[in-house]
């Protein structure tokens, strides 16, 4: 009987995940430790912003990750829709909470960084506003994926939504940038400082890498959870239909 990988457990993925998870865990801890050390003890304070620039070492990587997770959701969704690969659907569904967390953190750290610089917690700055809209796209995705009784239905509908969303992200970015320059006085201090000094670049990259391995770590854990939940559902259905 041809192996029905939708029903049989995707053993290849489960084995890979089981092996990968601890490595990702240790990589995250190590990279984060080194990154934070560099960020606090090696990188120089900003001549204008002083120590508050260190928030950049969390704000910038979380912003990158927010976008990176959304794009990987779109790629996973496309794979799921086009090649009907069941695990791809699960990857998209499990990435959403991680992406939404990073997106929220980017907003939180952005506003905490903005307070000493601009005097208020929220400024309709182009980047922050786009990040806020991206958060709405995440919340819309998460709401849709859980709005159906049959999870396969939820996965299909939300895959289409994330593909429509990923097409709209650049359009929204363009519109918000235009809207922002129209209303915002031009004197906004550039977030990343005039030029990235090497000692500032390394912690940024290390933190970004740490967040990426963290993403893969949580993704592996969540996807395995989903696969097992699927198997439970199939077993229950079997009991009902016999």
């Amino acid at each position: 009987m041809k192996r029905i990988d939708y029903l049989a457990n995707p053993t290849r993925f489960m084995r890979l995940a089981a092996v990968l998870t601890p490595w990702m865990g240790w990589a995250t801890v190590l990279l984060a430790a080194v990154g934070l050390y560099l960020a606090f003890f090696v990188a120089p304070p900003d001549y204008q912003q002083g120590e508050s620039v260190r928030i950049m070492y969390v704000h910038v990587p979380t912003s990158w990750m927010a976008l990176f997770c959304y794009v990987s959701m779109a790629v996973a969704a496309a794979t799921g829709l086009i090649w009907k690969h069941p695990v791809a659907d699960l990857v998209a569904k499990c990435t959403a909470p991680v992406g939404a967390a990073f997106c929220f953190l980017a907003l939180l750290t952005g506003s905490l960084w903005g307070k000493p610089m601009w005097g208020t917690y929220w400024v309709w700055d182009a980047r922050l506003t786009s990040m806020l809209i991206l958060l709405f796209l995440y919340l819309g995705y998460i709401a849709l994926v859980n709005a159906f009784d049959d999870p396969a239905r939820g996965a299909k509908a939300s895959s289409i939504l994330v593909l429509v969303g990923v097409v709209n992200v650049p359009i929204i970015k363009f519109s918000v940038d235009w809207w922002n320059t129209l209303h915002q006085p031009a004197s906004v201090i550039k977030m990343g400082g005039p030029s990235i000094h090497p000692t500032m670049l390394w912690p940024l990259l290390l933190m970004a890498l740490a967040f990426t391995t963290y993403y893969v770590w949580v993704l592996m854990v969540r996807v395995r959870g989903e696969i097992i939940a699927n198997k439970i559902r199939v077993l229950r259905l079997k009991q009902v239909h016999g």
Partner: protein
Amino acid sequence: MTQFTGKDLLCVRGGRVVFTGLDFSVGPGGALVLIGPNGSGKSSLLRLMAGLLKPYAGIVAWDGEGIAEDPEAHGGRMHYVGHHDAVKPALSVHENVSFWAGLHGHVGTVDGALETLAISHLSDVPGRFLSAGQKRRVNLARVLAAPSPLWLLDEPTTALDKATITTLERQIAEHRAGGGIVVLSTHGEIPLEGAGVLELAHFQAGSGEIAA
């Protein structure tokens, strides 16, 4: 010789194997009756044949060409009668039937169809006043109003009275005599002579597939 065939069909709904390794083949003038307990996949198979549902594996073909290749062409040569009757409460019977017949490019055949199913007296009555049986007859009228080679009928006799069932029987015989094909799921109300029978229970998945 347009043959309506299905090869090694595997249907998965909600993570459960509904049927597997299912083949069928019906020629012009032929008929196929699907029998089996509820939940054995009769409706799923009909929806698969209509193209509403994609099979997880296997292929449904018309004259050798997969129906997924050109869904519009398949839509043009087939009528699917499901559980819902698609009757709009705000539109009159005539408007309902002529809309669907119009989609298939047939105009002017509506009155004949209403006549055959004895609902021409309801022609101007809005859909919301109709009984379940009358709504089902309006649904069947759209099939008669736009002749198509393939009929896929999912339990067509529900909510129909004796007289209408015999009318339906005659229409199916006429349709088959004209070279048409009929596939229907039923609980035995319509005796169709010379019809193939497909027992869904034979194609249930063994318990081995699911446990894994």
